[in-house]
C-alpha cells in the first residue's frame, strides 16, 4: 500500500519547480553541446605540454618555454637514409612526393649563409675565429704574407673579393660556421651523415595547427602511408620522423580509443548488471538519465570554464560513468520489495546521501590542489559530473522512479548471499590485522618513492626513439636542459654569457657536452667588440696596408678606407637583420627584472654530465633542467598531498566521531585498511609511490566512507549491502578499464582504485554495527 503523505518534502511545489528547472538546465546544456560541437571539438587539446605545470615564480623560464614550444610545434622533420646515397635519394623522392599532397609546406635550412655573410661583412674585426684572434699577436710580416697568399689563392672561401677581406679573417670565421648545423646542402638536397648512413633531410612546416585533430590525422596518416610506400620500394631504407604533430596525433588516437573502450565497456557492464539485478527494464531509465546528466553537465561546464580541454580529461571522465550511477543504483536497491513511496525513501536516505556526495566531491576536488592543469580539469569534470548525477536523483527520483522493483535472477541470488555477509567484532579485526601486518609492513617497506614526468604522458616509444635519432643526427640542442643568463642590461647579459661560454668551452674539451648555442657568438658585448678592435689594430695600420696596396696594385683610397675603425654591432641592429635568425630564439630580451638570454646545449647525454653542468655557478647564470624540475614539483606535491591526506583522515575522524561516537572507526576503517593494503600491494608489485597514488588514496577515502556510512546507518538492511555492492562493482568496472590506459598516470589511477575500492567494499559490511536484520522502508507498525 502506498501512503499518501501531504507533508512529503519531495511533493512540494518548489520541488516540482526544481524538477522542471533541472530538466531545462539539462536540455539547454545538451543543446549547447550539440549546437557547438564543431567548435568544441576544436577546443580539444592533445598537447602534452599543456599538462605540465606553469612556472609562475619564474616568468623568464615560462617565456622561454613558450617561445621554444612555438618554434617547434609546427615542424615536421623526416630523414630517409641508407648506406647507398642513391637509395636514400629515391626514398626521399617517394616521401616528398607523397608529403606534397598534405597540408604541409616544404622548408629549406633555417639560416641562409649568404645573408649572414652580407650582414656581418659590415662589421669586420668584430668576429674572429679563436685561432685568428691568437694570430693577432703575430708580426706585421706574418699578416703581410697571409694577405699575399690570399691574393694568389685560386678563390676566396668567403665569397668576398680580396680587397674586402685581404687577411682572410672574415673568410675563416664564415668557414667556422660549418658547425652551426650538421646538415649539408648537396645537389639541391640537404644531407646529414649518421652511423655510416647518408640521410636526406626533409623539413616541413604545418599549414594548420599541430593540435588540430583533423590536421593531425591527415598529416600523421599521410606520412605513415608515404613511409609504407618508401619501405615497399626498398625494405632496407631507414626512415626517422620527428614532430610534435605526430605525438599529438598518436595521443589523440589513443585517447579516442581508450575513451570508447572505457565508455562502452562501462555502459554495457552497467546495463547488463541492472537488467540482471532488477526484474524487467524499469530500473534502466533513471540509471541512464543519471549517466546522461552527469556527462552532459560535466562536459558543458568543463568546456565553458576552460579555453582548451585536454583529451585525457575526457578519458578520465569516461570512467566517471561508473561513479555517476552510484546514487541511482543505491535508490533502486532500496525499492526492492519496498512498500514506501519513492519520495519518502529518498527523504530517509537523504542525510547519508548528502554526506556521501560531499565527501566524494571534495575528494575529487583535492586534485585541484596540484599545479597540474590537466588534473584540475579532471577534478572539475569529476566533481561537476558527480554533483549533477546526484542532483538528478534528488530531484527526479521521486517523480520518475517506479515505487517498487522486484529483484531479477542475479538480484535474488545476491540478496540471499549478502544476508549472510560476515560481521567481525573489533577484537577479530585487530587479530586479523596483526596476522597480516608482517605482509603489510614488508610491502610498505618495499614501496619506492619515485616521481617521473613520463607518468603524466604516455609517449609513443617508437616515435621517441626516432626523434632522439633525428636530434642526434642533426645535432639539435636539448629543449629541456639549458642555461638562462640574466642581467640588468643587454650588455651585461652578453658579458655574462661570454663568461659562461668560456666555462663551457673547457667542459666541451672534456667531452661533457658536444657544443652550445649562444647569442654572444653572433653578437659579442660592445665591450668585447671594442677589445677585439683594439687587438686587431695591426690589421688597420697604414704601414701594412700601404705595403700591400703597393705590391698588389690598389689605390690609396683603399688604404684609407681599410684604416677606419669599423662600426660596432648593436643588439637592435642584430635583431632587425635576417642574420639573427639562427639565434634570435635564444634572445629573450626585456624581462620584468632586466634582460635575459638562453644558452642551449647540443650533444648532451647522461645524468652525470647534466650534474656537472648544473654545478656551473656564475653571476646571472642559472641552470634549468625541465624534466628534473617537473619531477621535483611532482615529488613536492606528493609529499604535500600526503599531509593533506593525513589531515583529511583526521578531520573525517572528528566529523564521524560526532555522529557515530564509538562506532566511528567502523566507517573510517574500510578506507584506511584498503589504503594501507593498496600501498603494500604496490610495494610488492614494485609500482612506485607517486603523486597520482596519493591522489587516488584521497578519492578512496571519499568513496570508502560512502560505503561505511550507508552500511552503518542501516546495518541490518541487506538491500543497502546490495546497493553499495552495485555501486562498487560499477566503479571497479570503469576504473578497472582505466587501468589498461596507455597513459601511465591514468593506469596508476585505475590500478590503485581497483585495489582500494575493491577492498573497501569487501571490508565495509564486515565492520557494520551489531544489529538485528531489519528491513527498512516497511510501513510503520503504527501506520
Amino acid at each position, binding site marked *: 500500500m502506498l501512503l499518501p503523505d501531504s507533508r512529503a518534502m519531495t511533493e512540494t511545489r518548489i520541488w516540482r519547480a526544481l524538477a522542471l528547472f533541472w530538466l531545462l538546465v539539462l536540455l539547454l546544456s545538451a543543446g549547447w553541446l550539440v549546437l557547438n560541437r564543431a567548435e568544441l571539438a576544436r577546443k580539444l587539446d592533445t598537447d602534452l605540454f599543456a599538462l605540465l605545470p606553469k612556472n609562475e615564480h619564474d616568468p623568464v623560464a615560462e617565456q622561454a618555454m613558450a617561445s621554444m614550444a612555438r618554434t617547434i610545434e609546427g615542424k615536421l622533420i623526416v630523414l630517409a637514409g641508407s648506406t647507398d646515397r642513391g637509395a636514400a635519394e629515391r626514398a626521399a623522392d617517394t616521401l616528398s612526393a607523397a608529403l606534397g599532397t598534405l597540408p604541409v609546406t616544404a622548408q629549406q635550412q633555417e639560416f641562409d*649563409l*649568404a645573408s649572414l*655573410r652580407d650582414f656581418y661583412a659590415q662589421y669586420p674585426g668584430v668576429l674572429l675565429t679563436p685561432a685568428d684572434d691568437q694570430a693577432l699577436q703575430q708580426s706585421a710580416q706574418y699578416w703581410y*704574407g697571409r694577405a*699575399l*697568399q*690570399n*691574393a*694568389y*689563392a*685560386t*678563390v*676566396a*672561401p668567403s*665569397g*668576398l*673579393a*680580396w*680587397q*674586402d677581406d685581404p687577411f*682572410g679573417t672574415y*673568410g*675563416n670565421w664564415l*668557414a667556422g660556421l*660549418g*658547425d652551426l648545423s*650538421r646538415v*649539408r*646542402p*648537396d*645537389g*639541391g638536397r640537404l644531407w646529414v*651523415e649518421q652511423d655510416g648512413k647518408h640521410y636526406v633531410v626533409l623539413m616541413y612546416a604545418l599549414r594548420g595547427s599541430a593540435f588540430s585533430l583533423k590536421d593531425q590525422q591527415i598529416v600523421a596518416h599521410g606520412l605513415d602511408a608515404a613511409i609504407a610506400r618508401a619501405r615497399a620500394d626498398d625494405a632496407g631504407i631507414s626512415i626517422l620522423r620527428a614532430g610534435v604533430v605526430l605525438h599529438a596525433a598518436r595521443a589523440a588516437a589513443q585517447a579516442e580509443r581508450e575513451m570508447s573502450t572505457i565508455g562502452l565497456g562501462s555502459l554495457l557492464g552497467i546495463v547488463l548488471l541492472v537488467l540482471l539485478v532488477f526484474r524487467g527494464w524499469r530500473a534502466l531509465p533513471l540509471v541512464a538519465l543519471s549517466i546522461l546528466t552527469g556527462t552532459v553537465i560535466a562536459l558543458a561546464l568543463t568546456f565553458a570554464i576552460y579555453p582548451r580541454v585536454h583529451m585525457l580529461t575526457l578519458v578520465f571522465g569516461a570512467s566517471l560513468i561508473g561513479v555517476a550511477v552510484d546514487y541511482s543504483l543505491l535508490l533502486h536497491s532500496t525499492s526492492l520489495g519496498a512498500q514506501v513511496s519513492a519520495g519518502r525513501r529518498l527523504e530517509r536516505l537523504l542525510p547519508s546521501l548528502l554526506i556521501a556526495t560531499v565527501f566524494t566531491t571534495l575528494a575529487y576536488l583535492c586534485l585541484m590542489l596540484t599545479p597540474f592543469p590537466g588534473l584540475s580539469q579532471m577534478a572539475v569534470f569529476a566533481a561537476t559530473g558527480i554533483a549533477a548525477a546526484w542532483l538528478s536523483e534528488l530531484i527526479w527520483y521521486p517523480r520518475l522512479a517506479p515505487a517498487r522493483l522486484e529483484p531479477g535472477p542475479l538480484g535474488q541470488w545476491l540478496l540471499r548471499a549478502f544476508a549472510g555477509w560476515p560481521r567481525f567484532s573489533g577484537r577479530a579485526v585487530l587479530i586479523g590485522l596483526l596476522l597480516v601486518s608482517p605482509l603489510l609492513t614488508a610491502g610498505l617497506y618495499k614501496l619506492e618513492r619515485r616521481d617521473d614526468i613520463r607518468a603524466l604522458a604516455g609517449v609513443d616509444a617508437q616515435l621517441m626513439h626516432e626523434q632522439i635519432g633525428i636530434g642526434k643526427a642533426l645535432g639539435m640542442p636539448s629543449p629541456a636542459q639549458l642555461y638562462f643568463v640574466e642581467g640588468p642590461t643587454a650588455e651585461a647579459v652578453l658579458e655574462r654569457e661570454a663568461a659562461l661560454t668560456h666555462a663551457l668551452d673547457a667542459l666541451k674539451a672534456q667531452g661533457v657536452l658536444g657544443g652550445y648555442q649562444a647569442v654572444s657568438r653572433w653578437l659579442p658585448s660592445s665591450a668585447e667588440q671594442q677589445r677585439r678592435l683594439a687587438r686587431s689594430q695591426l690589421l688597420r695600420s697604414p704601414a701594412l696596408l700601404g705595403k700591400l696596396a703597393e705590391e*698588389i*696594385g*690598389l*689605390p690609396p683610397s*683603399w688604404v684609407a678606407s681599410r684604416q677606419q675603425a669599423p662600426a660596432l654591432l648593436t643588439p637592435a641592429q642584430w635583431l632587425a637583420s635576417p642574420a639573427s635568425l639562427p639565434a634570435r630564439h635564444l634572445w629573450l630580451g626585456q624581462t620584468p627584472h632586466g634582460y635575459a638570454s638562453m644558452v642551449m646545449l647540443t650533444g648532451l647525454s647522461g645524468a652525470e654530465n647534466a650534474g656537472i653542468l648544473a654545478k656551473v655557478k656564475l653571476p646571472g647564470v642559472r641552470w634549468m633542467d625541465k624534466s628534473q624540475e617537473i619531477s621535483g614539483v611532482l615529488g613536492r606535491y606528493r609529499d604535500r598531498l600526503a599531509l593533506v591526506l593525513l589531515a583529511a583522515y583526521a578531520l573525517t575522524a572528528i566529523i564521524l566521531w560526532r555522529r557515530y561516537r564509538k562506532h566511528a572507526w567502523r566507517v573510517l576503517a574500510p578506507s584506511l585498511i584498503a589504503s594501507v593494503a593498496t600501498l603494500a600491494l604496490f610495494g610488492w608489485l614494485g609500482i612506485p609511490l607517486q603523486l597520482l597514488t596519493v591522489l587516488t588514496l584521497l578519492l578512496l577515502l571519499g568513496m570508502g566512507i560512502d560505503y561505511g556510512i550507508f552500511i552503518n546507518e542501516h546495518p541490518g538492511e541487506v538491500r543497502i549491502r546490495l546497493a553499495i555492492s552495485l555501486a562498487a562493482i560499477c566503479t571497479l568496472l570503469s576504473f578497472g578499464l582505466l587501468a589498461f590506459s596507455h597513459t601511465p598516470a591514468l593506469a596508476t589511477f585505475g590500478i590503485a582504485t581497483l585495489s582500494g575500492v575493491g577492498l573497501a567494499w569487501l571490508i565495509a559490511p564486515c565492520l557494520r554495527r551489531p544489529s538485528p536484520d531489519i528491513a527498512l522502508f516497511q510501513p510503520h507498525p503504527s501506520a
Partner: protein
Amino acid sequence: MKCLLPAALLAAMLMMTGHVASASELLDKVAKQVTDSAVVRGNFVQTRELVGVKKPLKSEGRFVVDKQRGVVWQTARPFNNKLRISRQEIVQKDGDQVLMRMSADKEPAVKTVGSVLFALFAGDFATLERYFNVSGEAGNNGWQLQLTPRDAALGKLIGKLALDGGKTIAHVRLEGGSGDITRIDLKEVVNSDRLSASEAADFD
C-alpha cells in the same frame, strides 16, 4: 679553406676517365677523350684578376694527382706554398711550416670537398652532375664544358667554372661569386702509372 675547393675540382677534372657510362652524352664524350691513368702530373700558370686591381697576379708551379692518395698543388713563384688534399685532411704548408691543417672529421666542408674529389677520381660523373649543371660541347679533337653550381652556397664561392681540353684539361676559368676571376693554364701534363719518389714524399 684557401682555394681548396676549386683546386680539388681542378685536380679531379684531370682525373676524368672514360670508363664510366654517364647519363649525359656530353660528359660521356669528354670522358672518352680524357686519358685514364693512376697518376697525372704537370705544371700550371695561374692568373688572378682581382676586383679593383688593374694588374693581373700571376703565379706558377706544378701539380700531381694520385687517384688513391689525393692531390698536391705546389706553387713555386712568387713564393713557395704547398697544398695537399687527401681523404682525411687538407694541409697547407709554407716550406716546412704548416700554415693550416683541417681534418674531415672537424670541418664538414672538408668532407664535402673530399666527397666531390673522390667521386670524380673514381670517374663518377653522376656525382659531378650532382654538384653542377653541365653544358658545353665535345668534338673529335677537344671539348669544352661550362659548369654552374646547383647549390646556392657553392655558387657564392664559384659563380661559374669553365674547362676545356683534349686528352687532358688545358684551361680552367673560374669566376668567384665576388667578381674576382682566376684563370689556370695547365702545361706539360703527363699521364703515368706511379708516383716518383719525391712526389710520394710530398704526400707524406
